[in-house]
């Protein structure tokens, strides 16, 4: 059964005991509901160690959304070019392409899978994601590949991380122009201004960090180009309109959250009308598990 803004209005009227409490018109109600919605979401995020949080906010909780940063930054402006519906950051993974400096592909065999030889040993390991480029003749070697280590300077190329789909060759390459880069993709921790002096905790491609400032999210280290990020975030909430009678709120929030939100609204009603009894009752409801 759907639950609309008008239904929500009836819930808060019932909870706030409308006949005996201070009167609010619908416009003021909507303003208070918007404030209560932000507070309720922040309260839920604060207890994000439980799946219940994601379950309550299932319609606005976004996970594994991929963005391409511009100079290591993504816009957070509402309706902007980056995360257009951003509300709160939850987690961010950052991808960096790190070339194997001083190393090049000296041979790519005409075999399936293609076996490449590097001019010196590397620390690439089986199942690592790499980007091969510049290989001539055996051009099938080029692209985003997964390697299977034969020895520290010889690797077979696959198209999937489980190494089930080998890359077929289309010629024999020998030369010095083929390059190989490692794809490093790790979760970033949040960075604060008061930690920027730390030498031990400086961000690296293996331990990246992110900062939210200037309407942007900045991905560190800035000395490496971040080519992609995967973000979990809370998108702009759906604010309840008590005049609205068609949009089903249960498509966005769980009924548990809607009743939790109603208690937050009633608490704010009590604060606005200086009704201590109402605040106490609302607090008791909110503290219920």
């Amino acid at each position, binding site marked *: 059964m759907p639950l609309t803004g008008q239904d929500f209005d009836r819930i808060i009227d019932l909870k706030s005991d409308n006949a005996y409490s201070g009167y609010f018109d619908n416009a003021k109600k909507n303003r208070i509901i918007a404030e209560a919605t932000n507070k309720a979401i922040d309260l839920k995020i604060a207890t994000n*160690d439980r799946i219940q949080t994601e379950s309550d906010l299932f319609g606005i909780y976004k996970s594994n959304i991929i963005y391409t940063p511009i100079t290591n930054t993504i816009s957070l402006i509402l309706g902007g070019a980056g995360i257009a519906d951003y509300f709160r950051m939850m987690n961010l993974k950052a991808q960096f392409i790190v070339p194997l400096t001083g190393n090049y592909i000296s041979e790519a065999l005409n075999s399936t899978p293609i076996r490449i030889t590097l001019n010196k*040993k*590397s*620390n*690439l*390991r*089986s*199942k*690592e994601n790499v980007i091969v480029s510049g290989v001539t003749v055996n051009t099938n070697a080029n692209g985003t590949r997964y390697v299977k280590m034969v020895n*520290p300077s010889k690797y077979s190329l696959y198209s999937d991380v489980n190494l089930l789909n080998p890359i077929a060759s289309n010629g024999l390459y020998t030369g010095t122009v083929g390059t190989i880069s490692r794809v490093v993709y790790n979760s970033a*921790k*949040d960075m604060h201004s008061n*930690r920027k002096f*730390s*030498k*031990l*905790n*400086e961000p*690296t491609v*293996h*331990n990246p960090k992110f900062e939210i400032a200037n309407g942007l999210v900045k991905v560190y280290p800035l000395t490496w180009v971040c080519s992609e990020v995967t973000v979990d975030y809370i998108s702009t909430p759906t604010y309840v309109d008590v005049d609205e009678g068609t949009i089903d709120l249960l498509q966005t929030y769980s009924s548990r959250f809607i009743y939790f939100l109603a208690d937050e609204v009633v608490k704010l009603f009590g604060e606005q009308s200086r009704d201590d009894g109402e605040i106490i009752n609302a607090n008791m409801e909110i503290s219920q598990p």
Partner: protein
Amino acid sequence: MTLPELRERVSSAPTGGYITSDSRMDAGYIDNLIHSARAFIACERWKQYGQVPPAYYQKFEPDFSKLAQEAGSCFTVFYDIPQIIALDGRASGIGFIGNLNGIACQIREVSSLGEFASFQTDRIMKSGRKAYLINGQGEFTVWFKDKIKSFQMEIIAADPTLLPLYNVDYDDYPMDISDIPKMETYMLQGSFGLIYKTPIDRINDSRDVTVPPQVNP
């Protein structure tokens, strides 16, 4: 167990969860503690048993640069050498050094130019050994009758992640797995300044059961 796994394990122990805003739980700080604790445990092993398990050693091949050599010198210098731990006042964390230019041969490590000079004047030592290596200040100086362009070695590096062939995300951290509980103890009590979490006493019997477990460091 890789370094990121080890980091998560030791930092989860005091926090009960890895995600924390405490700067002591940041990766750089924890890694630094892990490297130090590993070096300390290796030294303990050496002092106690006279040897360090093979898991602590990593292979390393210094890069030769012709341009970096002094003209007309009778020795070869290798630069950008990662710091190697000292096991005690005499022994360093260098295991095997050898394989000169593809020929199986062992190089002897000497601690200083003075020691090397005394070997050169000693009748037996002079004839018994052919190549000597002095380690210090991020450089290896190899004394040999011919120029040496490559050699292999096994070392206990102070920071294992600096070795070019070590892969942080995929390779096992170079220490014996049986020493990891000892590492946790050192880090929890020594560096994090945290004691073990005590259990909640739920039994109303006037008896305190919340005494922390006794740990033998």
